[in-house]
C-alpha cells in the first residue's frame, strides 16, 4: 500500500498547468479534493442528462422528415408530462445542491487556529510575501519579493511563465492563514492545486485558510487583470517538512539580526 502510494505520488503529481490539459491539477488540500469530488458527482448527472437530451433531439430530427412524417401532430398540452419534466429536474438539482452546499459551508468554517500567517501582497507586477510572526519590532523581519524568472534565464526543466526566484515556503500538514492584499491595483492570488483563488484588493485584507497535505511545489498565476504584465507574475508555493521550514526561517532571519 505504501509502496503503491510512493510510486503513484512520486512518478508525476500534476501541480502545474500541463499543455493540452483537460482535467484538474492534483489536489493538495482538502478543499481542492472536495471540489474535485463534487465535480465528479455533478458530472455523472450531467452525462446522464446530456445523453438523454441528445437522444431526444437526434431522434426528433431523424423522424421529423417531410416525406416520412407528412402530417405533424398538433399536441399542445400534456399535463402529466409537464409535471414530470418539472419535478424531475428539481430533484436532480436538489441532489446536486446537497454536496455542493456541504462543500461551500465547510470551506467557510474556521475550526482551527492557524499556526502561521503569511501575507501575500500584490504589486505591479510581482508578489511580496511577509512572514511577520517572528518580528520583535515593527521592522520587517522576513519579507521578500517574488518575481517571475524571465524566459531567457530559465534552466532546463523549469516551467515557462511559472517559475519565480523566491518561492513561498510553507510547512506541510500545518494550518496556514494567508492574507492577500494589494499595494496598487486588483490582483488575485491563485494556486489551482491548493484550491485557492483570492482577490487582492488594495485597502482590504482577505483571509484564506489552507492545509497543504503533501510536500511539493505548487504553481499558480495572477488571476485578475492588472496591467501589461498581468500574465507574468506567477505564484509558487513550496511545501516542506516542518523541520525544513524551521531551518529555512532561521536562515532567512539570521542575516538580518546579524546586521542589527
Amino acid at each position, binding site marked *: 500500500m505504501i509502496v503503491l502510494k510512493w510510486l503513484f505520488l512520486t512518478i508525476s503529481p500534476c501541480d502545474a498547468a500541463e499543455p493540452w490539459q483537460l482535467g484538474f491539477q492534483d489536489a493538495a488540500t482538502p478543499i481542492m479534493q472536495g471540489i474535485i469530488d463534487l465535480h465528479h458527482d455533478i458530472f455523472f448527472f450531467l452525462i446522464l442528462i446530456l445523453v438523454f437530451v441528445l437522444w431526444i433531439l437526434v431522434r426528433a430530427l431523424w423522424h421529423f422528415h417531410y416525406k416520412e412524417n407528412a402530417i405533424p401532430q398538433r399536441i399542445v398540452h400534456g399535463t402529466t408530462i409537464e409535471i414530470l419534466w418539472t419535478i424531475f429536474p428539481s430533484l436532480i438539482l436538489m441532489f446536486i445542491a446537497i454536496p455542493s452546499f456541504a462543500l461551500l459551508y465547510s470551506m467557510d468554517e474556521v475550526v482551527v487556529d492557524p499556526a502561521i*500567517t503569511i501575507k501575500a501582497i500584490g504589486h505591479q507586477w510581482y508578489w511580496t510575501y511577509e512572514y511577520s*510572526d517572528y518580528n520583535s519590532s515593527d521592522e520587517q523581519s522576513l519579507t521578500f519579493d517574488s518575481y517571475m524568472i524571465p524566459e531567457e534565464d530559465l*534552466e*532546463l526543466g523549469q516551467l515557462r511563465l511559472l517559475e519565480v526566484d523566491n518561492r513561498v515556503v510553507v510547512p506541510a500538514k500545518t494550518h496556514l492563514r494567508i492574507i492577500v492584499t494589494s499595494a496598487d491595483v486588483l490582483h488575485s492570488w491563485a494556486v489551482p492545486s491548493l484550491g485557492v483563488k483570492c482577490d487582492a484588493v488594495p485597502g482590504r*485584507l482577505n*483571509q484564506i485558510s489552507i492545509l497543504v497535505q503533501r510536500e511539493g511545489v505548487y504553481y499558480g498565476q495572477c488571476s485578475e487583470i492588472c496591467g501589461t504584465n498581468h500574465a507574468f507574475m506567477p505564484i509558487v508555493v513550496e511545501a516542506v517538512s516542518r523541520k*525544513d521550514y524551521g*531551518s*529555512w526561517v*532561521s536562515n532567512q532571519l539570521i542575516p538580518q539580526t546579524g546586521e542589527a
Partner: protein
Amino acid sequence: MAEAVSAKTPSLSEQYHLENEVKQVKEDPSDENTSEETPDDITLKTAPADFRFPTTNQTRHCFTRYIEYHRCVAAKGDDAPECDKFAKFYRSLCPSEWVDRWNEQRENGTFPGPL
C-alpha cells in the same frame, strides 16, 4: 514534464544551502522568542482566529489589534509585557506598509482611529 522539474530544479537544501548552514544555526543563540530552534519540536504561533471577525475580510481585525496595542501601551506604559501579545497580533496580520503609515500618522496626530 514533472519528472524533469524535480530532477533539474534544485531541492530546498540546495537552493537555500541548508546542509551547510543548519549546523551553524544550532550554534548561534536563539534571538526570537517564538523562533523554532529545537529541530524536533517546532512551535509555530500566530494571531489566533478572532470570533469578532469571522468573515474573509480581516481589515478591521488588523486595525482593531493595532488600536488595542496602542491603547494598552497608553494605559500601561511602553514596556508592559501584557501589550506584547497585541503587538505580535497586529504585526502578524497587518502589512508592514500599513503599520508604517499608521505610525507616521500617529506621530503627525492625523491617525483616524480611537487610540
